[in-house]
């Protein structure tokens, strides 16, 4: 239905001292409906800036974003967002959080209730609707965030390190959940992460970005996400080609980091 097109997007920040930073330079990418794309890169490569532009929170200094035929000019319900943590509304119950989008749109009460109930079920939180969000663990809160985003039935789901603050065990479970929801809903998902393993597991396509200026450095098409839907994620991680890819990408990022360090330390 609606492909997400990133057309020659650039973002240049001006600093108060007059110099400029090229956070993103000439990024072009086409993401087809239903694709699962992960974006990886060392800190400072502009991946969060890119996601904020996709969401419509930032207007790029060059180029444009299109979703289907419409140009993105600001945030709207077509592109849902899942944040790292702390973006839930703690003055609302779990069910109220999940139903927030439809409620703002003025959907009928019965429809919202049914939708919330179904979503709580699919993220494994049935029976938690009346709890306060601060009574839940970090992993459960992220389940609420996923359900809240899905309740709006967006075309694209943008995830900004959604699992970054979770402990390793919870994280692994949540990775499985993300894959399951992707399969069930067929949504386009763009996921930003700084974990190489997570990027490999949760990306049909994996984009590696490089810093200064922020740009696309490499792109992979990967079989792991598709396999992970049916299989145990730990089995996927044990595949020899998974290990090879991981080492390859890790050393790529290492090189970038060393280059940055070198630049920083080199006498001007």
């Amino acid at each position, binding site marked *: 239905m609606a492909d997400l097109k990133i057309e020659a997007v650039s973002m240049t920040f001006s600093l108060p001292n007059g110099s400029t930073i090229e956070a993103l330079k000439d990024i072009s990418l086409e993401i087809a409906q239903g694709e699962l794309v992960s974006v990886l890169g060392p800190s400072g490569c502009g991946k969060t800036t890119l996601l904020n532009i996709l*969401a*419509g*929170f930032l207007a790029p200094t060059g180029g444009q974003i299109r979703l289907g035929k419409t140009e993105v000019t*600001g*945030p*709207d*319900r077509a*592109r*849902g*967002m899942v*944040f*790292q943590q*702390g*973006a*839930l*509304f*703690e*003055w609302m119950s779990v069910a109220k959080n999940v139903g*927030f*989008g439809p409620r*703002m*749109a003025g959907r009928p009460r019965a429809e919202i209730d049914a939708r919330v109930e179904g979503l709580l079920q699919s993220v494994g939180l049935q029976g938690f609707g009346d709890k*306060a969000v*601060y009574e839940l663990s970090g992993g459960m809160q992220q389940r609420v965030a996923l359900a*809240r*985003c899905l309740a*709006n039935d*967006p075309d694209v789901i*943008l995830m900004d390190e959604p699992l970054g603050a979770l402990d390793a065990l919870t994280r692994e479970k949540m990775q499985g959940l993300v894959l399951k929801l992707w399969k069930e809903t067929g949504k386009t998902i763009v996921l930003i992460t700084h974990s190489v393993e997570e990027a490999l597991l949760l990306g049909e396509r994996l984009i590696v970005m490089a810093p200064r200026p922020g740009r696309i450095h490499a792109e992979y098409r990967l079989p792991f996400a598709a396999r992970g839907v049916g299989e145990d994620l730990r089995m996927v991680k044990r595949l020899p080609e998974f290990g090879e890819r991981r080492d390859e990408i890790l050393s790529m990022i290492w090189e970038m980091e060393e280059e940055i360090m070198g630049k920083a330390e080199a006498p001007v």
Partner: protein
Amino acid sequence: MTLLLIYIALLATIWALTAWLSTRIRSRDGMAARKTVTFGDESAIRPSRVASVASVAVVFLIWAAFTGSSWTFIHAPADWQMRPIWLPPPENVWFRLLDIAANGYRNFTLWEHLSISIWRVFTGFFFGALIGIPLGFAMGLNSFLRGWFDPIVEFMRPVPPLALIPLVIIWYGIDEKAKIILLFLAALWIMAIAARSGVAGVKLSKVHAAYSLGASKWQLLRHVIMPNALPDIFTGARVAMGVCWGTVVAAELVAAEKGAGFTIMVASRFMQTDIVLMGIILIGVIGYSIDVAMRMLERWLVPWKGRG
């Protein structure tokens, strides 16, 4: 000086006694009791009930002992005794309270004196909040209004409300309106600043989340920014109530025909020290009660405070 030494001696004695007793009967259990490091671990420090009760008892004991009270067997030597005009014994204050509660003071009943002060505080605070909270929101949400009101609010905030009393008297005289306006001014800046910091404290990710879930500006304000600011507004309200209570008493000291502050002011002119003490104790009790009530209200209305 002697008094201070006696006080410290009593403190030390009771402390040693309770410490010794608690080593004898170590019946308490649970995490806190098993901690070996308590000095420096704030979470292991609980106010000791025994100490609190003993503290109040010691104050009354010293007071009674030095005023020749009939409520105690312990008396200070005769030449250390206070004269009632300086410090009456506790029972005088107590009986004076019963007397005034029954017969009133200066044409008004005790309840009228206290309730008028409380009414002034609540009315002044109400208007201060009514104007201050929207003002704070405006400052938190709009650059122009922030710039416009910042100098005024930042200048008025450090001016103690008491310093405004002379001006308010010149402008509005000494009637009810003048006192309400003074208290309004005392509460206004505190509430404005509390509301502003409540708005400023909203996490950007919550705002972003609401927008990408399809919320309009108005819906964002109603469902995200306002509830998010509530804990800060409550903290401000507690401070404002405290300041207003202090200000009303001071204002009544200067000019009033009834009220809690008026009572102690008039009594002091006639050297009715027992009434002065009674008034001070009542003012303290009411101020404390207001704060406790606000805290209970806060726990009931904003249970999510500090849990973001």
